[in-house]
Every structure is written in C-alpha cells, then in structure tokens.
C-alpha cells in the first residue's frame, strides 16, 4: 500500500511541475502587454515603462521569471500583483472566504435538495413524482448560473429591495446573507446532476438481489431505502460531487461578477483582462492543486477500500 501511495504522490508532483510550466507559458501567450494595462492608455514615458518592467521583474528572462515564481510558491510567497501592486497573499486572504463560502454553501444546498429528490424519484420510478422531479431537473440543468443570477437580481430588486445584493459584510450573518442568493444560483446545475445520479444509482440498488432478500426478511421500506440502498447509492454521487466542486470554483466566476462578490473567480477574470501574469498563474495553480488533491485522495481511498486496485 505504501508503494502505491508513493507512486501516486510522485505522479502528483510530476503533474504539478508540468502544469506549472504549461500555465506559465500559456499566460504569456496573451497579446495584452501588462504594462499597457497598468498605464491604461494614458500619457507616459519610455522611462516609466522601463521602471515598471524592473519593478515587476518583467525585465528578467522567462526562465528567471519562472524560477522566481516557483521559488516564491515554495516559500509561501505568491508574488506581487501588477494591478494592485500589493502582495497576492493579501489578495487571496481577501477573496478566499467568498469563493469557499459560495462553493460550500451551494454544495450543501445542492445535496440537501438533490439527494432526497433523487431518492424519491427512484422509489417512485415512472410515477408522477418521478416525472415532475425529472422535468424540474432538466430545467435546472438548462439554467446557466449567469442568467439565473441576473434574474435573481431583478427579482430581489423588485420584490425584496431590503435584501442586500451589493457591498461587503462585517459579521458572519451579513456574510451568510451576501452569499445565500448567489449560492442558490450556483447550486442549480449541481442539483440537476446530483439528482440524476442519485436516481440512477438508487434504481440500481433497488433492483439488486440484496434488496429482494431484505424485503423477504420483512425489512420496512424506510429502513431498506435509507438504511441499505441509500448507503450504497451515495458513493458514486459523492465521487461526482467532489470532482464538481473544483468545477464550481470556475463556475462561481460569473455568479460572483453579477452579485458583485469579490471572490477568486472575479480576481481571475480581472487578472486575465489586465495580463496580471502572476495572479493568473497563482489562481490557476490553486485550481489545479485542488483538482489534484481531490483526485489523488480519491485514488488512495479507492485503493484502501478495494484491494484489487492496489494489486494492479
């Protein structure tokens, strides 16, 4: 087992290094000159442009810039933003709570709605409840978060004008209220996905032989569904949801923008627009890291559960 874990960790490291090189190169493929973005089309001088280059290390070779960035990451220094001219660690500290809150709350909302609905749809397969849930699920899957967010804003502005959809927060209650509506908008797609997977997985369990045995032994329907079938059915749902969480960070970009929330998503988009290289590199690496950590942990967990994986 330790050999297997060692191999997985080595793979993890190699992929992270290769990805960091790819990200570093791709960010620099943008035609937008970061100095132009800093000056913003206003009058300047060649001397100022030169000094800005030195200030942000853009006068160094690509290789020097890469090792300077990677070295900083290992020391926990994320670098300096061209646009804000402050440490990216500070930017991340400001932005992280919003993105994490959005992703976690929308995941909770999605699971709380999707799992019972999926189970109900499976238990009531091909009956009215199943059909209604399926239709709603298809509708939710077709609702882009950006569009839903705009509808939410218009709805709130008209019918709940006292609900704060702009501005910051100063305590947990305000924080929760600020991320509640955007989390609901962000949760829609995951609700649809998790509901459909739960339904399919539950149907499989309901048709399994052990279910017939349990019924014949007189187990109540409630005990059977929640005590036996659901426990087996939930594993693939959680696998898919855990991978989706990484995607949600990217998906939160548009929701953050509409609700004027300052998360990592908006920071990423702003930084791409202004060729704020190091910020783009850091956020992209963070996303890759989250994907890789989840994926590696899942691989290790599978190996712990299933000896055949270890053997192979």
């Amino acid at each position, binding site marked *: 087992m330790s050999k297997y874990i060692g191999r997985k960790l080595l793979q993890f490291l190699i992929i992270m290094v290769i990805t960091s090189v790819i990200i570093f190169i791709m960010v620099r493929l943008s*035609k*937008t*000159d970061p*100095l*132009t*973005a*800093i*000056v*913003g*089309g*206003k*009058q*300047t*001088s*060649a*001397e*100022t*442009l030169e*000094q*800005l280059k*030195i200030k942000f290390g853009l006068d160094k070779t690509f290789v020097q810039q890469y090792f300077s960035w990677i070295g900083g990451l290992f020391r926990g220094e994320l670098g300096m933003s061209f*646009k*804000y*001219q402050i440490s990216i660690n*500070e930017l991340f500290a*400001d*932005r992280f709570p*919003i993105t994490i809150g959005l992703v976690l709350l929308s995941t*909770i*909302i999605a699971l*709380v709605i999707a799992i019972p609905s999926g189970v109900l749809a499976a238990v009531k397969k091909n009956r009215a409840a199943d059909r209604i849930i399926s239709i709603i699920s298809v509708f939710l899957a077709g609702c882009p978060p950006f569009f839903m967010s*705009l509808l939410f*804003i*218009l709805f*709130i*502005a008209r019918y709940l*004008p*006292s*609900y*704060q*959809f*702009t*501005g*910051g927060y*100063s305590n947990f*209650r305000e924080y*929760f*209220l600020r991320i*509640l509506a955007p989390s609901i908008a962000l949760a829609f797609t995951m609700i649809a996905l998790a509901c459909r997977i739960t339904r399919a997985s539950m149907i499989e369990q309901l048709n399994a032989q052990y279910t017939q045995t349990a019924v014949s032994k007189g187990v109540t329907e409630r005990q059977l569904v929640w005590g036996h079938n659901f426990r087996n059915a939930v594993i693939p749902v959680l696998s898919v949801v855990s991978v989706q969480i990484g995607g949600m960070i990217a998906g939160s970009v548009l929701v953050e*923008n*509409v*609700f*004027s*929330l*300052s998360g990592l998503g*908006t*920071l990423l988009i*702003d930084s791409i*627009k*202004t060729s704020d290289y190091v910020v783009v590199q850091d956020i992209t690496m963070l996303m890759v890291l989250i994907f890789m950590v989840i994926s590696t942990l899942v691989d290790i967990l599978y190996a712990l559960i299933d000896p055949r994986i270890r053997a192979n």
Partner: protein
Amino acid sequence: MKIKKLVALILACALILSFSAIGSVSASEAGSSDTLTWVLIGDITGLDPTQSYDDITNMVTNQLYQGILTYDTSVDSNLTPDIAESWEIVDELTYVYNIKPDILFSDGAPMTMEDILWNLDRQMDPANASLVGWMFDCVESIEQTGDWQFTVKLSYPDATFQYVLGTSAGYIMEKAPWEADGTVIASGPYAMESRVTGSNIILKKNEYYANADNVYFDRIVFNVIGEDTTRVEALSTGQADFATNPPFDMLEQLKADPNVAVTMFDTFGVDFVAMNTQRAPFDDVNVRRAVASAIDVNTIYDSLLVDICGPSSGLPFNASLYASIGDPAEWAAYADAYKEYTYDVEQAKAYLAESAYPDGFTCSLVVPESSVLNSEALFIQATLAEIGINVEINKIPQNDVYAIQMGTTWDAENDCRDFDMGFFTWYADFPDAAGTLIPNYLSSNAAPGGCNVSGYSNERVDELLMDQTTKTTAADRMPLCMEALDIIGEEVPVVIIDYPRQGALQNISLSEVPLNASYMWNLSAAGMMRN
C-alpha cells in the same frame, strides 16, 4: 440516526437564515443619512499618489488627499489653491507656491514642508515608476525657499506645468506612516477606515479637515460593482447613492427610473479614427483625405451618439478647452471655419484617384470590444466600400487598443505601430488643449511610450507646438495652436468622430452634485448631502 439529525440541523439552520435574510433590513448603511454609498465599476489600483491616475482610483483618492492646487467645478475648471495659500508664475521657468501653515493630517499631525517636498520627490524618483512622473519631465529642481514656500524651476518652458500640482501629482500624504508600513495618512475630507480588495473601501470623516463643516456624510462606502444590471438596480433600490460611468445601452432605462437622476457632462476627451501615417497605404496624404471625405461623421453622430457624445467640429478638442488657449469666441469662430472633410463620396473618389491607390485597397480597422464602436465600424466599412476601400474589422480587447496607442506593440519591419486604421480615445489630463495636441501630434511622441498613435510627423507642427508651450499667456498661444491645427487639418492623420461625455448616476435622495470635465481630479464627496 446521527447523520439524519445532522442533516436535519443543517436544513433547519439554512431555513432559519434564509427567512431571516428575506425579512431583514439591509445590512449595509446605504440610504442612511450619515453614510454615502458610492459605486465603482472596478477596483482601485491602490492609494499611493504615484499610482493614482485613472477615473476609478481617483474617485477614492480625491476624498483622502488634498493637492497643492485643485480645479474648481466651473465650466472652465479654473485652478485654485488647496494646500497652497497662493501661487505665482514668476517667469516662464519659475513657479512659486506659498503653503498654508496650519494644515493637519487625519491623525492630527501637522503637515510640514518636509512632507510636501518628500511627496514631490517621490513623484519624480524614477525608482517609484510614478504613472504621473512624466508630468515632472520639465522640472529642473524643487526647493524650499521660505518657511512655508517652495519654488519649482523648470529646465525648459512648459505652459502646462501650471496644471500639474492640481492633479494627483500634487497630492500630499504624511511621510512617517508611509515610510513605517505603507499607511496612507493625508489631509483630505475623509480618512481610510478599511478595504477589502475587489469588494469595498470604507472611509470615515476626517475631523481635522480644514473645511470639515462642509462634509455632511460621516462615512463613504465605495462598493465595487462591475456588472451593469446590478449597478443600475443598486441605484434604483437605494442600495447605492452615486456612480459614474453609466452603461450607455441602459441610459434610456435609467432616465425613466424615478429613483435615479442622470447627469451627462462634457469631458476633455476626443474619439477619433487614426490612420497609420508611417506605413502604406496611409502614408499617402490623398488616401487619408479620401477616407476623411468618405466617412459621414454627422450621420454616425445622429444615429448612434447623440446622448453620449458631443458632435465633432473637426478640431481635436472640444469647446471645454477653448478658454485654455485663447478667447473662446475666437476659437468658436475658428472651429466653424476649420478645414473639415465633410462627407462627399465624389470628392473622396477624386482624392483616391490622385493617390498611389486609385483602384482602392484592403486594410484593417481596429475596434475595441464595444457595441457602439462596432456599429460605427460597420458604418465606416460600408461607406469606405463605396470608394473601393475594403475594410476588415478587427475587434480586440481595450487593453490591446491601448498597446497600439502607446506603441508597446510594434511593427518591427516598418518600425512603426502595428495597425492600419483604428478607433481611439484620448483624454487630456489638464484643462488645456496642449494636453491633447502635444501627445497626439508631436513627432517625438510617435516613439514607443508616446501616444501619437497615427505616427504623425511634421517639422513645422513640432515647432509650433513646442513654441506655444513657452508662452505663459493663452492669447500668445492661440495663433501658434491655430497654425498647427491648420496644417494638421490639411494632412488629416485622424478623423475626429465625437467628443465623449461622462455620466453620473445618483439616487434622488442625494442633492445635486457639481460635475465638470475635471471630475477625475475634483469630484469630491465634501459638499454632497441628502435632500
């Protein structure tokens, strides 16, 4: 069983908090009598005066800082003393500033001459890469010449230097806190309370501000709202009080909103189509004349720009800058008679026939990603097709347009900017026409880092433009500028499309805010109040 209880608990908490959200009163203080909520369309770059050079950042820094000078809110944007008590142009190379001796920073510390000279040195020190450092290019020395006086000596005459200390280049902050840990302590009407990047900036009233009685709000909350719909709804519901940069495609909706007042005002800006005079085919003056004659500027204006721009007179600056370089009435008369290539397809064809490309050619037109500009580009594409010029529209991000304008993207083969034709905008930094003429038409500004986007070069124009900067009176500068404009008009490196206007949106609960073209330097919350 434990899992079920946990799920039930989470559900219950979520429901309670959801209902409390719906029933709650706004968490922000927007609309309250002592807090002004001001919407920004993007985040600020920072609070350091050396980086305070855009119309988002300056909305915040204008509240924190006092400048040596400032601009009043009259149509002419007259220079007035702020930290200075008085100032004088002794001769074309010598400017003397007398400072008020009793100014206090927001921490109660007195402002000293050391603070003032240190701030000016910071702006001029290349190591700080100040975005307004170029404004000091003509400065030879700045020295203290009295207890509360300093003198600026120029190395060559530059009439526009008088305006420099009315911009962020003249902002003064306290030296010690900045040097200790980068804290900004200044003497403006408000002081920094907190900031969350990308989200909000909160300022509190500066009790030590000299004119504190004129400051009616105890706090300002700047909220960053990039999305147009959200910004408009925030103003409409009263979650925000004030904003600039209205979304033009929502202007009609905003004007119809009873909760929002829309004010449009002139800027020092000009929108134009530039032709790259440094490479074929636009190095041929007759091609440029043909293009200028084929573009129906009036129809473009009437169809697309009436609400958001002023109509073109053909001059590269609008009427708000006439007074800076002479008698406005004389300038108005000059503008009426100015050589303008009015729409005339037959004349355009005649010019093209005289050029090296009588059968026409294909070229590209660079357009920033904007719906209005895209419509203008399509219009120009259609009209130029009538004379045999095939235009390929190339939509690019605004930052890439800036790169062309500043010459940071370069055509190495032809040693010039890499474009044929393009839409560009220029805003003069000062209420002075030279702030448009010199950057856009002086040949030395065609080099990388300069903003002479068309690469225009004419020795006589260079001579006239440099000569007018040596004059300290507007009347002396007027004939020189007019002669330069005569030549530029004949050689037509650019086609002036319009003069962009700026807009302010305010919730009707707010009293009228005085606005003029110097808003980037003088838009202040001091004086703003609720009705």
